[in-house]
């Protein structure tokens, strides 16, 4: 290989590295710009002054976001609760510790599974619906025409959905916990014949209001804020075509699911801390 051709190869290599860095930089900048837009949208929507009739809008959104998610939440909660009880029971029975099923079930649900699984289901059921609805409103120029009528879509469309999500999801998580514990009790006590006294009193002794219930509720509130924020922004920012809405809906579900799992780790680390 001659010196000249080696120099060309090197130059080409350097150029492709530069192109790669440039591409990376552009991607990062684009993401940051989106994050900025999303933050501004959230801020304006949260502080938009409510007006006459806005309470009705909020109630309607709580219905479509919260109440309509109840069926999937209740069904999943029951089956997850009963599966956990089944697994705990078979493992704990080997050590003669069947009585610990109740407390184990309650702790796992209140601290982790309740908020996390509710978050995932909520993202799939309500988050995707919010994105698709707002995306379609955008692509049919309904948001635009609202703006031109002097009505702020952030106040009229976005704000009620954000608030409804933050109100509904912690309640859904609470319902999830109750139903899942009931499902576990059905399996462990009614079916497998574990002692009801041990099941419930073990739970009562172990569960603390703040440490388990309180911190779990904080998790579900944080998840709710992020899921609804992502869902609303993806809808608002969607490319106004059929594929655009499809992509935005997928992004909502993927992004908020990943967000829930990552935030869960961070929150567990932060709130229950001092593991070492």
């Amino acid at each position, binding site marked *: 290989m001659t010196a000249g051709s080696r120099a060309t190869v090197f130059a080409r290599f350097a150029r492709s590295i530069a192109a790669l860095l440039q591409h990376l930089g552009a991607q990062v900048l684009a993401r940051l710009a989106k994050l900025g837009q999303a933050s501004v949208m959230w801020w304006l929507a949260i502080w938009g002054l409510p*007006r006459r009739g806005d309470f009705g809008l909020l109630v309607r959104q709580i219905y479509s976001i919260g109440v309509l998610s109840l069926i999937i939440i209740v069904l999943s909660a029951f089956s997850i609760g009963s599966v956990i009880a089944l697994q705990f029971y078979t493992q704990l029975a080997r050590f003669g510790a069947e009585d610990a099923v109740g407390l184990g079930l309650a702790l796992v649900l209140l601290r982790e599974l309740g908020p996390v699984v509710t978050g995932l289901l909520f993202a799939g059921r309500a988050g995707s619906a919010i994105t698709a609805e707002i995306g379609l409103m955008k692509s049919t120029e309904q948001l635009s*025409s609202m703006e*031109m009528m*002097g009505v702020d879509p952030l106040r009229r469309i976005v704000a009620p959905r954000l608030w409804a999500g933050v109100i509904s999801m912690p309640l859904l998580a609470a319902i999830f916990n109750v139903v899942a514990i009931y499902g576990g009790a059905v399996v462990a006590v009614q079916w497998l014949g574990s002692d009801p006294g041990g099941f419930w009193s073990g739970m009562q002794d172990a569960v603390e209001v703040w440490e388990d219930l309180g911190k779990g509720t904080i998790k579900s509130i944080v998840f709710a804020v992020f899921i609804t924020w992502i869902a609303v922004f993806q809808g608002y920012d969607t490319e106004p075509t059929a594929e655009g809405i499809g992509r935005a809906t997928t992004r909502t579900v993927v992004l908020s699911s990943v967000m829930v799992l990552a935030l869960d780790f961070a929150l567990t680390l932060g709130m229950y801390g001092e593991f070492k």
Partner: protein
Amino acid sequence: MSADAYIEIRDLHFSRGTRKIFDGLSMAIPRGRITGIMGPSGTGKTTLLRIIGGQLKPDSGSVLVDGVDMARVSRDQLFELRKRMGMLFQSSALFTDLTVFENVAFPLREHTPLPEDSIRDLVLMKLNAVGLRGARDLYPSQLSGGMARRVALARAIALDPDLLMYDEPFTGQDPIAMGVLITLIKNLNLALGTTNIVVSHDIHETSSIADQLYVIADGRVIGAGSPAELEVDDSPLIRQFMHGRPDGPVPFHFPASTLERDFLRAASGAGNRDTRS
């Protein structure tokens, strides 16, 4: 520019990405008249309406609406100003979850403290003006395209705006619906004294109602005057546009390499891509 201009646009520059849409556009829209803005598709006529409505910010230049610079007002002021504007969207943009009645009532409910029976009277008056009082309980999905546009018109005039902007009002309308719309626009202008902007590429319909026409192409105004003046204008581009000739300064062909080279390349198996660069 005339003293009674409702909208004054001076040296407007606007680009989308790398594509220049407006390159030093200036025009004046007279108060209380119907002004037609025409031009080939893709010249940014709709973009111009969005800039006037403050939905897009120009890169440079000023847009004065009744003396207020739309690029400089705050978000709150902008929403306040828009209450005095009505815009008829090409897609009608009716709220699909509301009935015809509720669609027209929407701006009234949002912006006025009127009691329910006054709102009802006003909505029925507006619907009567467009001939659709009987359709008040229908949903937008049950309307024909022409009816939807008339409902959107009723909604746009609900607050008696000073400025009405029509984005391609005649596109996709059958001749009867077109006639109805032309009469409505004309009558509303006469009855309310509203300043009207009609953006369109339908020359005959727009010429028949407009007091003044602007023809835009390549990001600037290439012709202005009354419909009669433009009809006899002898600049080639305006002649091509006003008389609907397929070829002229605006070429029939989308830019491409010559036909011969394209065929030769196909024969040599170089594929389908255009390798002009």
